[in-house]
């Protein structure tokens, strides 16, 4: 982990409320592992003090990028920033996805909306190509499909309104695929919590391993504040573990979901 003020190299609107931000960070970029995140301080935000965590999308040479959705005042201020301006980042942070070794299970990636961004490096570095299942509300919420196809991965799209791909939830084609050939596959997922929970249920039903990138309100990003905790099995009971430090990626079998005890 490195704390640095880095420069914005490129910043563009990808679609609708989605933006891609490229940072020049020669010391950080080579360290990035799939599923890790950057904790970003948006300096023009005067009254909103906390850093914002973003999954790292791509890491190339001396740059890395994030793909984000403009949703609140932090991302609103970030969206106003231009190439050449500085951003303070702490990165790379967290425990990411385990890249499947050559000859192991077929990776099935499951992404909700811009959760796709967190999975790109995994697809790129995996020696086995697999299938990416991506779901969103509308066609405009489906991102980076061509980036995955360019890596030689198959992409299956679902939208809730049917405006692109199959109509419905991302777990439908995933379930069909597992019914067809569950043995020898391994799930990796990033997206909204209800989607992660549904993926976790399917993993259990079909007895396949799954790694989930969990999302909880984050504050310090480095493990000191204990804000972003997730309930994780521990012996006969459970304990809180930090999504910034022990996570954000957890083994689905270890998660204790809301309503379970």
């Amino acid at each position: 982990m490195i704390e640095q003020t880095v420069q914005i190299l490129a910043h563009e609107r990808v679609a609708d409320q989605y933006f891609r931000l490229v940072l020049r960070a020669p010391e950080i970029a080579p360290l990035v592992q799939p599923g890790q995140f950057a904790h970003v301080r948006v300096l023009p935000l005067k009254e909103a003090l906390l850093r914002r965590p973003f999954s790292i999308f791509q890491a190339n040479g001396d740059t890395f990028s994030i793909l984000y959705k403009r949703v609140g005042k932090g991302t609103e201020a970030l969206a106003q920033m231009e190439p050449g301006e500085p951003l303070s980042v702490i990165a790379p942070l967290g425990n990411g996805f385990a890249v499947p070794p050559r000859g192991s299970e077929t990776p099935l990636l499951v992404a909700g909306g811009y959760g796709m961004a967190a999975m790109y490096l995994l697809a790129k570095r995996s020696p086995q190509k697999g299938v990416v299942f991506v779901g969103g509300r509308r066609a405009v919420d489906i991102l980076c499909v061509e980036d995955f196809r360019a890596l030689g991965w198959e992409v299956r799209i679902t939208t809730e309104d049917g405006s692109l791909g199959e109509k419905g939830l991302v777990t439908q084609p995933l379930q069909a695929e597992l019914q067809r050939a569950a043995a020898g596959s391994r799930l990796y997922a990033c997206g909204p919590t209800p989607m992660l929970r549904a993926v976790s249920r399917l993993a259990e039903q079909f007895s396949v391993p799954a790694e989930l990138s969990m999302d909880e309100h984050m504050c310090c990003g480095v493990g000191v504040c204990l804000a972003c905790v997730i309930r994780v099995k521990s012996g006969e009971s459970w304990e809180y573990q930090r999504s910034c430090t022990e996570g954000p990626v957890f083994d689905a079998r270890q998660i204790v979901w809301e309503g379970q005890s």
Partner: protein
Amino acid sequence: MNLSVQLGSLRMQNPVTVASGTFGYGAEYAQLLDLNQLGAVTVKGIRLNPVRGNPTPRTAEVTSGMLNAIGLQGPGVDGFIEKYWPFLRTLAVPTIINIWGTSVEEYAEVARRFDALGGVGALELNVSCPNIKEGGAQFGTDVALLRQVVAACRAATRLPLITKLSPNVPNIAPFARAAAEAGSDALAVTNSVPAMAIDAETRRPRLANVTGGLTGPCIKPIALKLVWEAAKAVQIPIIGMGGIQSATDAIEFLIAGATAIAVGTANFYEPQTAFHVLAGLQEYMERHRMTDVRELTGSLRVGA
């Protein structure tokens, strides 16, 4: 230039420490910071047994600050000694251990355990956490209980005792005096301010605990006044804290009457803050031709 300060028998090489709960157990920041440049490392609150803490969401950002209701999650005395003490004991600077309990006896027992450990810099008595059902704030908002807790810890250890006072009292002076009279070597002023935040769209509280403690720059004016009032009430030194994010903030606390200061919430968004404070303090002292940081303490100019 002298930057060192003394809190009872605790000597700090400079007046800058960190607020309990904002710095984990030190090791988490060791990759980013040289902890040996601090005056002391203050760790998150420990009670006798492990504590699971509150459900999430545990924090919420608000204008110029944040709310937290972590619920003092922690490993307990044994877990702390096993997991975190081996690193902390290698530091060249003292460790201040924040302790709490749900009874006077528990506070004293925790104090005894850390006294027996050897090598601890000081104990900070947390009598002011707003986020737990029993213990914490109840000891900090009742003068008689506060006196009992401090006296019991005093009897249990010879380590320097720092009593961390609650902001949630009508007048801090009697609490400051009770702590001093019961044997506290220093005060920490102040803890987070009880507060809440609501999401208007969902009509739900933004913290699972409903209420929490407000920290960050928005509480600095409240904390400054409390330090000023406590300093007038007692002779023992005070560690001032509450929203410090710059050297100027820290200097204001010293002028109000603090001998040392702690950086808290700012650690979350700018881990280098304590070092910026230290550098800025030295620059200020040079500019004002001061040779000893203690000249600043209580130097507020009131009236004509």
